[in-house]
């Protein structure tokens, strides 16, 4: 099954279609407090009066510290919400996500927050780019395109004595003693 190029091509298209379908399906899902899925800023702030008394998750930047006031991301003009009951110090300028009950259009009775330090997103992006480069580098080193079989296959490692003595079907020598590249 799925041996020929045509079958594999069709399979790939079908799988990519399935991924697209999953995204459409997920897009139909609404909030579900029983599953701990709550409305977020973009859903609440076109018309926050409908969410008063309900639990929501709001995200934005801290603009004032005592009391804690957040300028919500993605709102235009920017909406400010007071976070009532934040139980630990937050600094102005940090990004924050707050979960709580919307007491009024301008106040959230806060049940939990997560903050992001300045520079946090730059760190995350940089580390992720490095991770991506490591993977790309290793893929180039460890895999090759088999034009005959039309697909990727592992490269045999640099020959070790073991491989020269009697290579197995996999290019034996990978993972064996003396293969310092087994990392």
């Amino acid at each position, binding site marked *: 099954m799925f041996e020929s190029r045509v079958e594999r091509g069709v399979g790939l298209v079908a799988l990519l279609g399935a991924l697209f379908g999953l995204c459409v399906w*997920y897009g139909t899902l609404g909030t*579900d407090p029983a599953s701990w*899925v709550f409305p977020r800023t973009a859903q609440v702030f076109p018309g926050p009066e409908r969410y008063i008394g309900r639990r929501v998750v709001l995200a934005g930047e801290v603009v004032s510290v005592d009391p804690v006031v957040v300028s919500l991301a993605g709102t235009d003009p920017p909406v400010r919400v007071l976070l009532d009951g934040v139980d630990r110090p937050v600094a102005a300028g940090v990004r924050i996500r707050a979960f709580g009950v919307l007491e009024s259009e301008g106040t959230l009775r806060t049940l939990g927050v997560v903050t992001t330090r300045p520079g946090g997103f730059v760190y995350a992006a940089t580390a992720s780019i490095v991770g991506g480069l490591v993977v790309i580098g290793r893929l180039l080193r460890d895999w090759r395109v088999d034009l005959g079989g039309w697909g990727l*296959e592992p490269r045999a*490692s640099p020959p070790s004595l073991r491989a020269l003595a009697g290579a197995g079907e996999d290019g034996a020598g990978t993972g064996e003693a003396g*293969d310092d590249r087994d990392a």
Partner: protein
Amino acid sequence: MPDGLAHVLFAYAACTALSWRYEWLTTPYRTAAMAGGLIPDISKIGVFVDAWRVRDAIGLPFSFDALETGGAAAVWVAVGALLVVPRERRRTAGALAVGATTHLLTDAMLAKPTGHSYAVAWPLTRYYFPTPGLFKSTEPGALVVALLLAVGAWLLDRRRTRAAAAER
């Protein structure tokens, strides 16, 4: 997510440890596992492409969040399996799955304001499981842990390889 580098290192550590039991998990498959460790981050395309633009363009609901779930990861593993030559399919799928699983599990431990994570098991269930809140993707804590695990696994692996060679 813990950041992408942490994910890659967690995947490497997991795969290396598993190779002590499943000897076929050699270098190329560890690389595949590390690639698998990045799969659920394909959802980050949503940072660059606004989902509402896609919705407008296709006239259907649409969310990139589906791509962070276990269900989407399983489909991507199948994609990877079809990209390799048929005799490599099972091993590659296995390695990719190891990597993707480490990603899903570590993401499920990220700090969240609700104390619950995300739809990691969707479409089996949409439930957002409780999270111990161990990591933030924007701080290096996860990377430090991942680095320690990866270096530890690598050292143990070298020691086992040398011990095995000494016996022969």
